[in-house]
Every structure is written in C-alpha cells, then in structure tokens.
C-alpha cells in the first residue's frame, strides 16, 4: 500500500539559505506524525510547504499519489492549525468554524449541522456566539482545531499546537489531541520543538536538524536507538564520552574501556548512555567521580557527577525513594555503573 502523503526529495531555499534540504518522508493514513526540531531546523518550512504557503524549490509532495506541490493552499484538501491560532477576530466562534465550509459552498443547513457537531466534540457549544478575544487560551486552541477539522481534511497540519498553552494545560491537551485524532480518523502532522510532546503524542517522529532529516521512527526507536549523536542529544538527556572506537566498544583517552554491544570499525567515536540507565555501584562499565550537585525532582533525584572521563559532569537519574539516594550529599565520592547493552556508539 502506498502512503497517504509522500514527500519526495523536497528542498526549499530562501536566497542563499537552505531551509529544507532533500527531505523524503512517507506518512500513512490515520497516522499521528510529529516533525521535531529546534528553531531553524526547517520543520515549520516543511509544514508550510505541505499546507501550500511555500512552493518547494525542488522535489515533490504527493497526496494519494497525486502531486500537489504547485497547488495553492485554498485548493488543497489539507488544513493547517496555526501556532497563533489565527482566529478571525471580527467573527464569532461559530462564524470562524463555518468559514471554511462556506468556502466549499455547502448548503446552509449542512454547514450548521457540521458546525454544531464539531462544537459539541470540542465542548464549546456554549461559546458559539463569543468573539475570539472573549475566550481563554485553551478555548481558542480548541476553536482553531475545530475550524480546521470541520473541513474534514485528508491531512491536518498542526504548527506548535500546544505552544501557547501553559505547562499544565499542555500535558492534558497532549492526550486530548491524541484521543481526538483517534476519534476523527484524520492524519495529523504536528510540528513541535518539544521532544516530550512528540514522544507522548506521535505514532512516528521525524527529527530535523539544519533542514535535513536525521531520523524517522516510532518514539521508542528514536529514544532507544538514536542514529547519531545529534539525534541522541536532541531527544532526552544523554551523557557522552569521546574516545577511539574498538571492536567491542571504545577506549577513552585515559585508557578506560567502555563496553558496548554496538560495533564500529575504527576512528574517533562517542559512547552515549542515558542518565536513567546509570546506577550507583559497578556494572559492565564502571567509573568513579564526585557529586557536584543534586536536584530533587519529586519522583527522581538528579546528580551531576564530576569524573575524569568527560569534560562535562555526568548526569545520573536515581529513583528518589531508593535507600542510597537518601543519604547522598554534595562532595560524596560515588561509583557509577551501567550495562554494555545500554551503551550506544556513534562516530564523532
């Protein structure tokens, strides 16, 4: 089966600046897909090309196998939920939502029916006659979503959909969005800079850096098996140790050996391990160091341990209620260990 949305070697240049550089992606029907990247990574430009606001400099965008690269935004069966929501300030909630259907020249009765339907889905029926400036941030976000969804697009694009909400609301809305996507059965493509948001919501995540696609896969794959150090660094926290590759791992400049089940031929390489994979006490790999800082995060305790093996302190996350975590204090000498299977090796 071919993918719903096929992005083929797409590129976008603004003058001398290349915003998107030869990206290819397939997005399937009914998928919740996240484009993840820091600001300037090209994720928004990619999204705007999907929406039709930018014309690709090279490559193609196929929707249901049809090239839509040159199709103007108002003709595409694709809708965008704007980061600022872009609600029409002079129209009521109802008029905002009905606008897209009016553009389709649907009969009035049908428009009303569909608007009422979506209003009840987003639970804003009571606010139908308000103007956008009389709504809260979360309500505006839902109106923007409804306005795009009511068109029943083939693909719904969401530009930082939760960016303007406060942290607590954001957490709730992540699950809400996922539920909604499931309910309406529409393909969602979300742009976000928040890796946690991407991991929580998306079926698959694509990581972009400097306009290039770094990695694309399920949240588990990109978290557990980053393809290179940038992907590893971007998602979650990662400790790095630089050295020379060896058949069974890597040798640090001071001679310490780091064991890994991954293999790399030879040359400069980097070993990486997640903080939550490190334990107090020895393991396949063992190093020692001094606690420089402790931070209590409720569920866990985060340590910064200064070692002789890396220029930056090693970050360690311990479950806060473990007995050894109770007595640790700044200046304590500690031994850190982790498994070879938890060690990733990348070229430097």
């Amino acid at each position, binding site marked *: 089966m071919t993918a719903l949305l096929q992005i083929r070697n797409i590129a976008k240049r603004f003058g001398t600046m290349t915003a998107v550089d030869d990206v290819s992606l397939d997005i399937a029907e009914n998928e919740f897909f996240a484009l993840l990247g820091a600001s300037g990574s090209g994720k928004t430009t990619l999204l705007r090309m999907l929406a039709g*606001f930018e014309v690709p400099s090279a490559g193609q965008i196929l929707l249901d196998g049809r090239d839509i690269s040159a199709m*103007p935004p108002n003709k595409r069966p694709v809708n965008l939920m*704007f980061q600022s929501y872009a609600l029409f300030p002079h129209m009521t909630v109802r008029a905002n939502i009905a606008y897209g259907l009016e553009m389709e020249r649907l009969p009035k009765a049908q428009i009303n029916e569909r608007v009422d339907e979506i209003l009840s889905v987003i639970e804003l029926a009571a606010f139908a006659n308000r103007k956008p400036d009389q709504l809260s941030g979360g309500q505006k976000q839902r109106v923007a979503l409804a306005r795009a969804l009511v068109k029943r697009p083939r693909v719904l694009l969401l530009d930082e959909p939760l960016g303007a909400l406060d942290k607590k609301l954001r957490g709730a809305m992540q699950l809400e969005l996922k539920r909604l996507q499931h309910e309406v059965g529409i393909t969602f493509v979300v742009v976000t800079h928040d890796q946690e948001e991407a991991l929580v919501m998306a079926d698959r995540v694509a990581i972009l850096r400097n306009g290039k696609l770094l990695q694309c896969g399920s949240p588990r794959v990109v978290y557990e098996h980053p393809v290179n150090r940038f992907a590893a660094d971007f998602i979650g926290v990662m400790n790095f140790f630089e050295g020379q590759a060896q058949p069974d791992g890597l040798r640090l400049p001071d001679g310490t050996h780091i064991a890994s089940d991954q293999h790399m031929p030879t040359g400069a390489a980097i070993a990486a391990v997640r903080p939550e994979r490190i334990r107090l006490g020895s393991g396949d790999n063992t190093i020692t160091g001094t606690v420089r800082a402790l931070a209590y995060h409720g569920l866990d305790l985060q340590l910064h341990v200064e070692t002789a093996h890396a220029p930056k302190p090693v970050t360690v996350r311990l479950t806060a209620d473990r007995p050894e975590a109770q007595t640790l204090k700044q200046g304590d000498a500690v031994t850190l260990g982790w498994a070879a299977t938890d060690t990733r090796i990348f070229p430097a």
Partner: protein
Amino acid sequence: MRPGVMPPGRSGLNNAMNSRSSTILIAPALAWLTALMVVPCVLILALAFFRRGIYGGIDYTFTLENLALVFDPLYGSILLNSARIAGIVVVIACTVGYAAAYAIATLPRAWQPILLFFAVLPFWSNYLIRTYAWMVLLNREGLITQLARWMGYKGEMPQLLYTEGAVILGLVYSYLPFVILACYAPLSRLNPEIAEASQDLGASGWTTFRRITLPLTLPGIAVGAVFVFVLSIGNFVTPALLGGGQFQMIGNVVYGQFLTANDWPFGAALSMVLIAVMMVLLLLQTMAVERGTRADG
C-alpha cells in the same frame, strides 16, 4: 520567527499575493501622487527657469534671473525674517508643547488619552476659524480691551492685533496641539523605571530630566519642530489676517507672485526655496532621530 505575525517576505500571503499584488495595490495611489504631486512640483522647478512675460504669463526662454533674485538682499531678508519668526514660533511652541506633554504623561494612565484627545482637537478644527478667534480677542475694540476696561483700566491699550507678536501668537496657537502630540509619543513610551534607575544611581530630578528623559524624547521634539517650522515659514494666512498685511513671510511673497504680481516663474523659484528648506530640515530631523534611536540602543 515571532509566532503568528509572519514578517513580510516570509509569509505565505506574500507567496500567494506577493510583490505582484503589492504592485497592483500600490499602483493607483502611486500614480495619483505622481500625477498630482510629483509632476506639478517638477513643473514648478522647471517654471523657475523661465522668464515672466511683460504682462504675466510665461515666456519660454531659459534664465537664471529668478533664482538670482531669490538671493537678492530684499528677498534674502524676507526669507531670513520669515525664518526668524518661524524660529521664535518653534521655540515657544516646543517649550509649551513639551511642558504640556510632559505634564500629561505624569498623570494617571487612564486620564492621558482623553487629555491628549482634547489637546489635539483644536488642530483638526478649521484653521481660519481659530485664527479669526484671535482677531476677535486682540483687536483694539476686542474682548481683551473690553475686559481691561471692565476691570477698570482707563489708559490707552497697546496695539495687540496687526503686530508681529500677534502673528507669532497665532502661529503658536495653530501648531501647539501638533507639538503636544509629537512630544507626548516618546514621553509615553518612556519606561518610567529608566528615570527611577537614574535617581537610584544618585541623580537629582533635574539631572535625570536633562541627562535621561530629554535625550530620549528628543526625536519627538525634532518632529514637532520641523513641522512647525515648515508650516510657519510657508504660511500666508496668519500674517495676512493677524499681521494686517504688514508682515511679509515667504509664503505671502509666493502668494503674491502667483495671485497679484502674476510673476509665476519667480513665485516658483521662491517655492523651490521652501522645498529646499523643508528637505534640509527633514534630513536633519531624520539624522536626529537616528542618533536618538542609536543612543537608546
């Protein structure tokens, strides 16, 4: 990229309807301004280089006489005198206007818009009527004289109307609202914490004003000053009405060349001077503003 507000040039709007539609939108107004402002002004420039016919009209032979005449001591002195009167008007209007704007800016935020509205209101009402009001007040048998008599003043009143003072007063009165507006804008944008920081660092109120507030609000004063100067030096109505025809500003001479002496080429040459003065002042003002913005980072 700021969320939501796409900077022009990157926005999708521009891709859909960018420079071409921008040109279509701009074209009608631009054509209008070109046909009815630029071309006529260029025409005036050209006229200045032709001879006047004996009975008026234009004799199309090239001459520099008109331009030379502009720098003739007679017209030079009129120009200087106009500049002097306009200069006095600028100083008075900017001092009073700045003080008023400053005072308005110190009041509670809620009052400011309404006060500003009432300060600006006269500027938008009829210029002639505002000037005429002063004729009613100042003339020898006018309200001020009446008031003085009523209060028991027996002597001869000094002549108030048809004096240079009356012309200056009329011009200040006409343009003061504009100065208040121009000075208020930067004053209201001023972060009060900056002045507080200055005082916190040991400066007195006056030093704070002189070293902090005044330099930061100079661009507003510059805008006000340029407008008032240009409008004053080219004015012919106020000198005619409040000056009793005895005070020739450069505007009156231009008026006279076109409507009385029928010497259009010389009138055109004189108005070139007005345009030149305006341009020089605008340039200076732009420089002042740019220095101001560089100074406050």
